[in-house]
């Protein structure tokens, strides 16, 4: 069942992105930035965690989850260490997206040659 919901929820988030691209006519960079901010705001209202419980990868794979986990890490650390935790905890949860992008980006640049 979670497979069906992850398909539907993930698909809907992609459609929202496509609508921002086509109807609002923004660049992909703008679109992704808007979606990340939306994810952060949703977490601020406590709405993103239930979505992950409900849709699994449908909520964790789209880029909105990046904003969600940034806020999540910051709040978790802020609970322990107070206001400074907002800064120190920022990348606590979401490190894997950025670190794997950097690592595999470097490996990719070592292995593959540019085309064209």
């Amino acid at each position, binding site marked *: 069942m979670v497979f069906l919901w992850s398909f*539907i929820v993930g*698909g809907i988030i992609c459609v929202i992105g496509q609508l921002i691209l086509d109807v609002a006519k923004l660049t992909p960079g703008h679109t992704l930035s808007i979606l990340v901010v939306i994810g*952060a705001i949703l977490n601020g209202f406590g709405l993103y965690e239930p979505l992950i419980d409900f849709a*699994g990868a449908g909520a964790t794979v789209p880029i909105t989850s990046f904003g969600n986990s940034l*806020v999540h890490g910051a709040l978790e650390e802020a609970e322990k260490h107070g206001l400074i935790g907002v800064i120190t905890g920022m990348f606590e949860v979401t490190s894997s997206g950025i670190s794997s992008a950097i690592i595999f*980006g470097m490996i990719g640049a070592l292995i593959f040659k540019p085309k064209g």
Partner: protein
Amino acid sequence: MAKEKTNYQKYEQKLEPKRPVLKNCIKAFIIGGLICVFGQLISTIYMYFFDFTEQTVGNPTVATLIFITMLLTGFGVYDKIAQFAGAGTAVPVTGFGNAVISAAIEHRTEGFVQGVGGNMFKLAGSVILFGVFSAFIIALIKTIFSYWS
């Protein structure tokens, strides 16, 4: 000057081909949904064989997806899928990975420090910037509110 600009913009709008919004949305829905289902499959495997919960399994799933993206980007397959799917491949975390990895591969001819290092986050940097900054503001507001109440 201002009037001239609006006239030109009207002219430009008239010439621009109408985008097939509905068709694009259906493509984005199907491909984006399939990527998420694939992610769910990876998540399920991680939860079954390793000690991950539904909330923590996102991290290894994202790393695995970006690894696959590296292979697809390197062999030039990702661009072909992206041309068809539009936001369906851009919005999932694979799109973020593709932006970083393709920039890294493209600029390797300029050297590893200036080329790869300097250009890796050319496209994806804005996502990190606005993600981090908005997260900072939101977490700050929430923390201050929690002190008050």
